[in-house]
């Protein structure tokens, strides 16, 4: 598939551009919508937890809003990429059935488009945060590529599995929506990982998004990255899922035209 990505650079770029364009086509606010949704969520969580529950400072003296922001945006990119991938093949049935072309690009382009759109919002807010706090992450910011790369691999792997699954069983679409809501709350985004009770700790160890969210957060808030076992597990998961998703997709590709 990597070969396909390089030989079809131009096609992939065209598809990503079209995917982003189509997402906002016909709306008057256009790309602004990609900012509005996370802002509303961020405001909502801040109001519920900071104002109503009066959660003060979390983990090393950071405000609740900036704490949530670090985890929320990367999660939204990941979730949007996966959920849109689910229908990447089924929604393009007419193309998949009528044209011989590298169909994995449908998934990859959806994932890239989601990360690009959310990435722009993320960078804008990161800039705002730094101006507001008066601190600049500087060189540590380059480390952001590590969790970003992991999240991308994970999303492409997940996306391929979900897209294939949905071709054969349309239930996957419904299942994924529910599953990702659950996954969101099982990932330490609205709460710090150290608040998780020992008794259910095992449930969180298996979640690769824990390591990725932690990595984002520690790079932005404290300017360092803890290269521990959790991150190593995250790397294994991301690479493993990417490879498995690609493999499964390759095996299923020939049957798409029959089942769509």
């Amino acid at each position, binding site marked *: 598939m990597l070969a*396909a990505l390089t*030989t*079809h650079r*131009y*096609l992939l770029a*065209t*598809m990503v551009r*079209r995917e982003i*364009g*189509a997402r906002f*086509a*016909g709306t008057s606010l256009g790309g602004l919508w990609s900012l509005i949704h996370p802002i509303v969520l961020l405001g909502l969580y801040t109001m519920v937890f900071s104002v109503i529950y009066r959660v003060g400072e979390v983990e090393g003296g950071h405000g609740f809003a900036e704490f949530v922001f670090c985890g929320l945006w990367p999660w939204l990119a990941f979730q949007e990429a996966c959920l849109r991938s689910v229908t990447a093949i089924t929604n*393009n049935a*007419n*193309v*998949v*059935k*009528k*044209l*011989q*072309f*590298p169909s994995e690009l449908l998934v990859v382009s959806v994932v890239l488009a989601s990360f690009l759109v959310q990435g722009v919002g993320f960078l804008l807010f990161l800039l705002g945060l730094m101006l507001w706090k008066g601190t600049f992450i500087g060189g540590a910011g380059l480390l952001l590529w590590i969790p970003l790369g992991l999240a991308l691999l994970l999303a492409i792997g997940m996306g391929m599995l979900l897209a294939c699954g949905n071709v*054969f*069983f*349309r239930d996957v679409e419904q299942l994924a929506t529910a599953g990702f809501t659950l996954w969101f709350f099982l990932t330490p985004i609205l709460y710090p990982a150290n608040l998780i009770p020992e008794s259910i700790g095992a449930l969180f160890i298996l979640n690769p998004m824990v390591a990725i969210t932690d990595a984002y957060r520690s790079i932005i808030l404290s300017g360092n990255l803890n290269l521990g076992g959790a991150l190593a597990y995250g790397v294994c998961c991301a690479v493993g899922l990417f490879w498995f998703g690609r493999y499964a997709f*390759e095996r299923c*590709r*020939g*049957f798409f*035209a*029959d089942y769509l």
Partner: protein
Amino acid sequence: MSVVSRCTESPSPQPTPHAQGRLSPPGGEEVTNIPSSDWVVRTQNLGKCYKLYARPLDRLKELFVSSRRYHQDFWALQEVDLCLESGQSCGIIGCNGSGKSTLLKLISGVARPSSGTVEVAGRVGALLELGTGFHPEYTGRENIYFSAAMLGLEGAETEALVPEIIAFAELDDFIDQPVKTYSSGMYMRLGFAVATTIRPDILITDEVLAVGDEAFQKKCIRRMEAFLGQGKTLLFCSHSMYHVQKLCQKALWLDHGRVRAWGGAAEVTLAFEDYLRGLEAQEEQQTEPQPVADASLPSRLRQVRLLGADNQETDVFDLGETARLEMIAEVPDGQPPVFAVGHVRRNDKFGVYGIFSDMDRVEPQRVDAHTFRIGYEVCLSLLPGNYTFRTHVLDPSGLRMFDTVEKDFSVRGESRELGVCRLPHRWTR
């Protein structure tokens, strides 16, 4: 006509087997070397089987729960051996559901064969549907770039072709409007223009000419003819025998997923049309009651012989050959009877021509007191197909028909003429 061809051409280097599920990029470098005289498309024992499930849940059950078979196999295509050389055009004909589209899907690589192999050498431009992948919100120009990218072109390559595409599609004024504002005719023109302008080596089209007005159809045909003139290969699926005869040298007739006939376009399409007329006639027969035969027949035809030019009995003639009928009738009252001959196309019982001996003021020859004989010679200008001579004997006034004997025969030959028979004609200028 050979039923089912076995291809014996020598194998060509570097085939691109879709069957192994390898991703072959359309227009990828490794497949662009076309062998000049060898095959371009080759299928061997090709088959496609669909699994039919009664309910979606059955598929899950079969996968995870039990080892019981929940599906029914449906073979949409079986044992297709096809071999096309470059520059050849092949029409694929058959009734609905005979597997035409499945075959095109397998050759274009969209679907994977269940058995056998497909090999294609060259860039395939598959036109299974016009305007595949167009996005309604984007302009025509943007869709050209996207569509061309899907077919394997780079931006710069497309750039060079855009003027030609716009000109062919006749969309100069609308090309920067969103495609959703296009009429269906504009949409189809654009789709056809993109797919054929990218210069594929093999063009696969499925019923695209069935849509569109006559002017557009003519334009498409001209373009396909030009395409063939460049030594490219065309695979063309159509219900229009006229288009197949006009564009294709070869034709493949599929019937319930199997090859019914494969050969020259003219003979295969004629055979298919014959078959279709047969189906129609069968339906008519089922609805119309059969006339009851008259029990008391005073006169009867004792012998009817159909002779060829060499005076031997035959039932096969070449177009333009002379056929001779010899009829002997027994007439109880000894009065010279009237004979009649009808030329009938066999499958739909279409009466091509009929003549009575008394119309030509010919009296039969008396053999003895109760036996009469007559000969009938005709130049068979009938177009190739299956026919019947219907011979009758009537009473002397030519009003009551007593007996009928039918003689089947067929006319051989290759002809792309249309209709039933060849009328004497000449072209002037």
